[in-house]
């Protein structure tokens, strides 16, 4: 590459080789995850609400509806399970959904305060920066999920074997990737925080309720066939099922395919949306261009 020839030895730039190295890629990734972790530690409120939200569902909602909503024996469960046990995977996915949208909410915020600009002037390619941002988001969501699982353990909501805590990890990484990438796409499309707040309502609630998080799909089919179609095509349903089976050391192949497929599509869309030549930023006049 011509860029590696000794450049004009201007006093500011002594003969330097500024190729991007693999080590540099790793340092950039590490830096982005490190910052996200630091911010997470500083925002105790965020951690607390991320933990309390699913616990409220688990302790109160599930206890109240235990009697109303009977769950028959469906895979992966081999015995009758308590309603709490049934909804735990859905609540885990909810943690990740909130986290994915929240970290992109922070991107919208970052963009408004300009921190996003600092990220984007890095010489590393956009896809690497976005992927690093996603890895950082997944890292934070894993902390939240395992904190939730710990509390749930003492509430007697446990997988059938302790191995479940390990086998669920790859599923969590994949679902975190899908939901995080979805958030990234949304953050590129919505410019203002107000918009985003309403998107939270229009996205989180429909996605969560029209899924198998709170009730098995066969129950929905009994109630309404169109709704059942919606639920079975909802990627969130497949995130929930992937987690549910993984907790029991099993793989739900359809869900795996759907989640992996959606993750890929969202990821490509996010890279496109933030691409400087093709992306939405150029077309829309950029984050802080004239209104």
């Amino acid at each position: 590459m011509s860029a590696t020839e000794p450049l004009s030895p201007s006093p500011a730039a002594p003969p330097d080789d500024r190729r991007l190295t693999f080590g540099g890629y790793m340092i950039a990734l590490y830096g982005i995850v490190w910052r996200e972790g630091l911010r997470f530690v500083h925002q105790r409120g965020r951690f607390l609400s991320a933990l309390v939200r699913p616990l409220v569902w688990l302790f109160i909602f599930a206890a109240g509806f235990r009697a109303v909503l009977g769950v028959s024996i469906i895979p992966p469960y081999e015995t009758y399970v308590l309603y709490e046990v049934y909804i735990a995977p859905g609540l885990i996915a909810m943690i990740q959904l909130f986290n994915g949208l929240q970290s992109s909410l922070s991107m919208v915020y970052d963009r408004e305060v300009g921190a996003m600009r600092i990220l984007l002037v890095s010489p590393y390619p956009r896809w690497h920066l976005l992927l690093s941002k996603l890895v950082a988001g997944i890292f934070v969501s894993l902390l939240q999920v395992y904190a939730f699982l710990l509390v749930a353990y003492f509430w007697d909501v446990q997988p059938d074997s302790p191995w479940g805590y390990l086998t669920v990890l790859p599923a969590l990484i994949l679902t975190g990737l899908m939901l995080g990438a979805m958030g990234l796409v949304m953050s590129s499309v919505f410019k203002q925080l107000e918009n985003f707040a309403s998107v939270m309502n229009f996205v989180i609630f429909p996605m969560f309720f029209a899924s198998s998080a709170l009730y098995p799909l066969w129950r929905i089919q009994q109630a309404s066939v169109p709704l059942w179609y919606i639920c079975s095509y909802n990627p969130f349903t497949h995130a929930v099922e992937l987690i549910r089976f993984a907790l029991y050391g099993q793989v739900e192949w359809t869900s795996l395919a759907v989640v992996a497929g959606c993750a890929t599509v969202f990821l490509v869309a996010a890279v496109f949306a933030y691409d400087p030549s093709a992306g939405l930023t150029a077309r829309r006049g950029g984050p802080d261009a004239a209104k």
Partner: protein
Amino acid sequence: MTAATHGAGAAPALSVRDVSHSFGSRKALDGVSLEAPSGAFTALLGLNGAGKTTLYSLITRLYQNRSGSIAVLGHDVRRDPAGALSRLGVVFQARTLDLELTVLQNLLYHAALHGLGPAEAKRRGLALLERVGLEARAKERVRALSGGQMRRVEIARALLHRPSLLLLDEPTVGLDIGSRRALIAEVRRLIADEGIGVLWATHLVDEIEAADRVAVLHKGRMLFSGDVAALRDRAGTDDVGAAFMAVVTEADAAAPGASAA
């Protein structure tokens, strides 16, 4: 790529050639050319809405120029973005420090984005903080700093990866007169000591000195580019502010068809 050599043949810190950019039907930049040499202070003068922010967005590759070319020390932003961005330091108009993190943490984060490991970043970061007189505040949260101090941290941050070009977008907005003077003096010292090129966007003419270069951007077009003396001569006045306004007014008078946006 032509081999850049010592002296006259050396690539300028920043070279912008015939760049246009539109948002929908609105033309934000129209055939803009500009050069900011190394070791010099180039002031980009323009009223609000002149297109300064768009130009900065293109130089920093927030989005890409579709026409013309932009090069940082000979590295084309479009063809060799990594080469260009790694030689570019930016201080944006909006404050871009993370208020919750400490001064040093902010610097380490930025260094990581440029591929600098923590040990080297810390060494450079502390040296730069000393330079801007803030080494004692390294462990404090940014939130505790004043506006002028934050700007100085941002300048230290922009210099971490040893850029050849420093871009500043109206850096003195919101600062009191003392902080303003200190900031300008600091940047001028940098040019003298390190020989970097500086492009300083502003609408405040009193930030310009006689030896500087000036570029006047108005409604997306570059009306003038040269040294201060030439601008004064062209407008026939000794006052830089009056000369700037004269150039702008002349352009408006020449293009009455351009209705106000």
